[in-house]
Structures are given as structure tokens and as C-alpha cells.
């Protein structure tokens, strides 16, 4: 203990503790007001570091989710095209079946040829579909997939999107894969079928049933491929969803302030502060001089 208590000592000790307490109260006040316990790196250097990393991860997850949403929209769109295509091929097949039969004659075949040419135009239009201005079936070439003669102008490039760190999923089908390779593609085949109908070649029309069946199978195969990509994207979306929750929790643990605890601490510190103020006041009120009057 002190041997002598002097005037300046009383003052400076009180002031010292008041300012220290004041600083702590201010800090708590800041925490409660902002809801964060890490307001600047020095509040918790390691916490600030991991917060930066966790937040970066979250931002990436959000982007991956956006990528997946885009991929799903793209796949849905492709799926819709293939659905239409399947119908068109089925119609062509119906015609081939009916026109290969004995009841058909040159007249019906000529009339059907026109119908098939109509289907061919519809198929060409589907093959040249664009999504948000981009050709769907031309690979990475950026060109229209098929010329009006039904020649493929694209390339074999796979369009991939990033769905997780280091994971790319392809989402595009190239023209040949859906419509058939080289000259054996659906568009050019429909041309030949129309020609066979016009020239009344029953044999060729009958073969067309199998051919069209083959094209149908190709589309079904393509649709199943779309399905598996779709499932892949959905799986990654679920994984991302779960990871986002975990990382958000982690981030909150690092930076968010426990308001209840902070307020409790704040009020106890405030009490101490007020007590110091009161006792300091008393300290200066009571001196010997007041008794010597």
C-alpha cells in the first residue's frame, strides 16, 4: 500500500482507470452497434484472416450456384428442342410407315413429300436454335450450326461451365451428336426421303422407317445424356447449398458478436465506470480543510 496519498495521485489514478474503462466501454459499444466482434484486423488477426478466406469461399459458392442455374436453364432449353425434334421425327416416321404401305400411291406420296420438306425446314430451324443469341448445337465455333443445305458448320468443341472448384461440366451437344454424322444427318436425310417420295420409290421409303427409328434413338440417347448432366448439376447444387450453410456458420462464428454477452459485459463495465466516477467525486469532496473550519 501507499505510504502517502497525495492530491495529484488521487487525480491521476482515477483518470487512468476512468480512461481505461471508458476505452473498454467504447469497444463494447462499437461491437453491439455493429453486431460484429471483428471490426478491424487487430481485434482478432487470425479471425480476420479466416473471415477473408471464408467470405471468399462463399462468394465463389454463390458464383458456382449462378453457373449451375445457368447450366440448368441451358439444359432445359436444349431438352425442349429435343422434345420438339422427337415429335418431328415421329411425324416423319408415321408418314414413312403410311407411305410405304400398299394403300399409298404416287399422289399421296407427292403430297407427303411436301409435308416432309416442311418437317425438314422445321428440323433445320431447331438445329439452328440459339440460346441468348448463342447457337446451341455448333460447338464453340460461334457460327450457325447448319447451312440451308444441311451441312454442319460448327466444331466438336465442348462448352463447359464451372460448378465447383476444379470441376467442369459439359452442357452442350454438338450437331452431329443429335442430328447424325456428316451427310447422314437428319436434315439431308429428310431431303433424300422427300426425293424418294416424289419419285415414288417405295423401297427407299420403307427403308426410311428404320432410318428414322435410328434418328429417334439418337435423340433419345442425347436426351438421356442431358438427363445425366442435369442430375450432375443438381447434385453439385445440393452440395454447394450444404457447404454454403457450413461456411456461413463458420464465418458468423468468427466475426459476429454475441450480442447478449456483449450487453451483459457492457452493463457491468458501465456500473464500474459510474462507481469510479462517484468515488472520485467523493474523494475530492472530503478533505481535512472541510473539517477545520
Amino acid at each position, binding site marked *: 500500500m501507499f505510504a502517502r496519498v497525495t492530491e495529484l495521485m488521487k487525480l491521476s489514478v482515477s483518470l487512468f482507470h476512468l480512461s481505461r474503462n471508458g476505452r473498454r466501454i467504447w469497444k463494447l459499444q462499437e461491437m453491439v452497434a455493429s453486431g460484429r466482434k471483428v471490426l478491424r*484486423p487487430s481485434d482478432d488477426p487470425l479471425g480476420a484472416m479466416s473471415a477473408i478466406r471464408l467470405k471468399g469461399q462463399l462468394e465463389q459458392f454463390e458464383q458456382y450456384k449462378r453457373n449451375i442455374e445457368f447450366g440448368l436453364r441451358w439444359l432445359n432449353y436444349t431438352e425442349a428442342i429435343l422434345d420438339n425434334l422427337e415429335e418431328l421425327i415421329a411425324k416423319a416416321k408415321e408418314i414413312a410407315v403410311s407411305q410405304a404401305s400398299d394403300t399409298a400411291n404416287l399422289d399421296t406420296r407427292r403430297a407427303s413429300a411436301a409435308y416432309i420438306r416442311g418437317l425438314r425446314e422445321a428440323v433445320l430451324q431447331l438445329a439452328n436454335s440459339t440460346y441468348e443469341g448463342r447457337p446451341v448445337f455448333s460447338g464453340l465455333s460461334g457460327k450457325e450450326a447448319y447451312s440451308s443445305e444441311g451441312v454442319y458448320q460448327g466444331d466438336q468443341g465442348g462448352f463447359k461451365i464451372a460448378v465447383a472448384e476444379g470441376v467442369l461440366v459439359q452442357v452442350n451437344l454438338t450437331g452431329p451428336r443429335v442430328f447424325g454424322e456428316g451427310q447422314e444427318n437428319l436434315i439431308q436425310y429428310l431431303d433424300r426421303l422427300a426425293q424418294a417420295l416424289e419419285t415414288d420409290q417405295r423401297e427407299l421409303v420403307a427403308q426410311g422407317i428404320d432410318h428414322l427409328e435410328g434418328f429417334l434413338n439418337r435423340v433419345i440417347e442425347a436426351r438421356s445424356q442431358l438427363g445425366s448432366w442435369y442430375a450432375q448439376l443438381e447434385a453439385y447444387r445440393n452440395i454447394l447449398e450444404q457447404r454454403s450453410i457450413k461456411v456461413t456458420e463458420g464465418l458468423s462464428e468468427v466475426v459476429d458478436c454475441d450480442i447478449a454477452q456483449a450487453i451483459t459485459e457492457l452493463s457491468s463495465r458501465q456500473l464500474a465506470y459510474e462507481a469510479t466516477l462517484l468515488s472520485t467525486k467523493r474523494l475530492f469532496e472530503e478533505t481535512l480543510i472541510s473539517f477545520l473550519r
Partner: protein
Amino acid sequence: MFIWALEVAKSALFAQQAAIYVTAHNIANVNTPEYSRQQVVLSTLGPVNLPVAYLGRGVWVEEVRRIYDRFLALQIHYQQSEKSFWETYRTKLSYLEAVLGTSEEEGIPKLLSDFFNAWQDLSLNPTGYAERTALLAISENLSEFIRYRAQQLLSVKADLSKEAEASLRDVNRILLELAELNGQLRTGRNDLFDKRDALLRELAQYLDFTVLEDRLGRVSVLVGGIALVEGLKASRLQVEDTAQGLEVFLVDSGTKFRVTSFVKGGKLGALLELRNRFWEDLKGELDAFARTLIWEVNRLHSEAEGTRRYSFIEGAYKAADPEAPLSQAGLPFEVPRGTFYINVYDQNGEAVARLVFDLDPEVQSLMDLAETLNQGGAGYLNAEVRDGRLRISAQEGFTFGFARGAEAGEVRPPSGVVSALGLNCFFFGWDASTLSVNPTLHLMPELLSQSAMPASPSDNTNALLISGLENQKVWFKGEGKALQATLREYFSAMVGSLGLESKQAMDRFETAEGLLQSLETRRQEISGVSMEEEVINLTRLQRSYEAASRVVKVVDELLETLLSLR
């Protein structure tokens, strides 16, 4: 004998008066921070031999003593410079923290996420225009943010120098005053000793020193064994911004020598430490961060194509000596040895040629490279060097783009040659202060290289590779050190160590402040004025004075009695 008694009473009256005077002085200085209380030392006057006996002659003021602990004062000086050091350190660091150490929600970490995400947005729509302008706007934000931080760091550096200069002006004034005071110090001039201590303490706020005191109380102030004040002579300190950092010189009758390494502790020590070590480190780290960002993005960007091709391009980096081998040509980035490709397209956008170029930076100069390009690209390209920069232009009807090697559809890593020459770069510059986005891209966003394969505008491979940089560990090279980390990890480590240092400074400051406070309390306990004590003393002295007066009165009465004897 009565006469003697009167003399004794007189001495008592004088002594009590002196003591009251000292008490008044104490009370008057109750709030003077550096004041040391004074105490009257009374002692008896030697006896005289009277016929009756040896009788005392009363009292005299032997000394007015200053109550003070010399060693405590030394400790206080030391602790004062410790506290001032950490106070300055802490204040500056928390400012730097505000400059650089943003939270995870904003600043560089946020912009970095935005930047890489914008590349992914482009990967979703590789031919999109809106995605390109968005990416460029975000990149502009990022580079401007980093550039602005670098600028703020530079102004912090200037402030540190200015503050050191201002501090030295104070120091020099104190040194002069101390030397002057040395001429006036004598034993018993208590208040001058207080003034001396106050000056020493003020000095301790600026730097740490050693004090030697002679018999008369005159002080010599030494820093690292060199006297700043000796007797009546004071030296002058001077600060200079040199290439090696901020240096402090001692100027002494025409000679000048460096004392930087001796200046420790106090505000000045903190300013020197901050400026010469901390600031340099921090700036180096920010520069390394920007440099790696520039290099890694450019390396991928340069050897790839956008949806539009070049008809003319000029290198962003200038070779100081276009005739020297490229490794010594003074380019900001080291030119690696490697192979790069130039794809040439005709008017219809069809690829007509794939030109291959090998570069050996140890042998070929920029001029040689231009020559090689002219030969290899004959009929398609013209190359020349103007003002230390490589210029390539396509001949009429052709355009060209850059590419890297590819094997079986898989793109190989870029050689880095094209970006080192500053061709088809995404970022310009080489450190935090020079970082900017290639202005040509703002004019023609289609030049943004998202495709790693020739003639494939819908290819997004390059955009994916660049966005993949976010998770890739890359090399950071600074002064004499190199480490591998992702850009985000590197930045967060930078913020973390800044935060850690700032936190330590805060803790050290609190400790130093606490210690100084307890020493100060101890000093006040010894040297401070206690009102109670003084009031009691005053009462006591008043009574003593009254008693002595009473003695005079009694003697007077006795003398009267004596004189009235008839």
C-alpha cells in the same frame, strides 16, 4: 539570559515563518505535475557556554530539501519513452489498418471475388458484350482500389518523415534548454531541478537516452554513447530522407555523423522503425501482391484470343535497351524462354496460318525478335521496334491473335513470353502504384481473351482458367523472399500480420501505460503534495509560531518585572 531567550524565540519565529513559507509553496504547487514537494530541515543552533550551563541558541533552517527519488526518475524516463514508442506505433498502425485491413465484406477481398466471378460470368456467355464491359468495370475498380492504397501508403511515408522532422525540432529545443539549465543548477535550487526533470521527461517522449549527473546536478544526455548535451553544450539532430530510408544525423560544429541506429524508443524511435522497416515491408508486400496479380492474369490472357482480332498491337512494356538480350533489356518482368504462336486470319475470319516462334531471352534482343517476326510472318505481319516497344501490324486484309501450344485439343500452359513483352495484356504496370487495366480493352471489349483455341469464339476455356486463378497457388516474389499462396491467402496473411502487429502494439502500449502509471503514482507518493499533510503542518507551524510569540511575550513580561524592581 532573558536576552538569549529572546534570541531563541526570534530564531523560532524565523524558522516557523520559513517553514510556513515552504508549506505555502507546497500548497501552491499541489497541481503542478512535475513539482517535488519541499521540506524544511530544521536543526538546533549550537550551544553557548553560559555560566549556568551549555544552553542551546534555538533553531535554524539548515536546508529546504526537495523530496525526490533519483532512481525512480530514471525509471520513469525509460518507461516514458517506452510508452511514447508504442503510442506512436499503435496510432500509425491503426491508421494503416484502416487503409489496407478492410473487413472481408469490402475492399480488396471483395473486389478480388468480384473480379474472378466476372470472369466466370464471361465463361457462361463467352461472346457476350455486357459481360465484357462488366468485367472491365470491375477490373478498373480493383486496380484503382489497389493503386489508391499504394498512394495512401506513399502519403503515410511522407507524413512519417514530416513528423520525425517536427519531433526533432522539439528535441533540439529541449537539448538547448537543458544545456542552458545546466549553467544555473546549484544545490538548493530545487525548482530548477524540477524543471530539469520535466525537460528530461519531455525528451524521453521522443527518444531513449542515458543520463549522467554530476555533483552539482548538471546532466549529460547520451544516446548510444554519444553526448547530445554535455555541460553547457548541446548538439543538434537533423533528419534526412535518403535512399536507405529516414536517417538521423548529429550535427556538431560542422561535422555530421549518422546516429540513426542509436535512436531507439520514444516517438522518434517509433517513427524510424515504422518508416525504415514496417513501411518498406508493407509496401513491398502490396507491390508483390499487385505484381503477381498482373503477371498471372496477363500470362493467361496474352496467349489467347477474344472474339475480335488485332490488326495492330504495341507492347505495354518498354525495353530500355532494344539491342540487348531480352533478359537484360530492362523489361519489368523477366522474359522466359519459350514458344508462342500467332494465328493469322483472313477477311472472312478463317484461320489461314499458325506461325510458331521460339524465343531465347539470353540471346535474342527485341530488335532480333522483330526481325524473326518479319521473317516468320512474311506476307502476313510487319514488326518493328519503336521507342523500346515492339509493334506488330497485320498486312492489309489480315488480322492476328496470339495463342499457346495445344496438344490433342488440350491447351498447354502459356509460355509467358507474350505477356513479358506486354502484348495482349489484361493489366498494365508492374506494381501497386502502376497497376491499371489495358486501355485498349475499354475501347474494344471484344479483345478480351476468353478463348484458348483458335477460331473458337464460343470457347470459354481461357475465361475459366483465369477465374481458376482464384484457387491456384501462385508465386509471390518480394525482397529476398518468395512464397506460394493463392492471391486471397496472400492478401489475408498481409492483413493478418498487420492486424497482429497492430494488436501487439496496442497491448504493449497498454502495458507501458500501466507501468508508467504505477511509477508515476509511486513518484507522486514520494514527491507529491498531500493537502492533509500540509494543512496539519500549517496548523502545527501556526501553533509553534504562537508558542514562540508567547515566549517573547513571557520574556517581555519577565523583563518588565525585572525592570520594575526599584
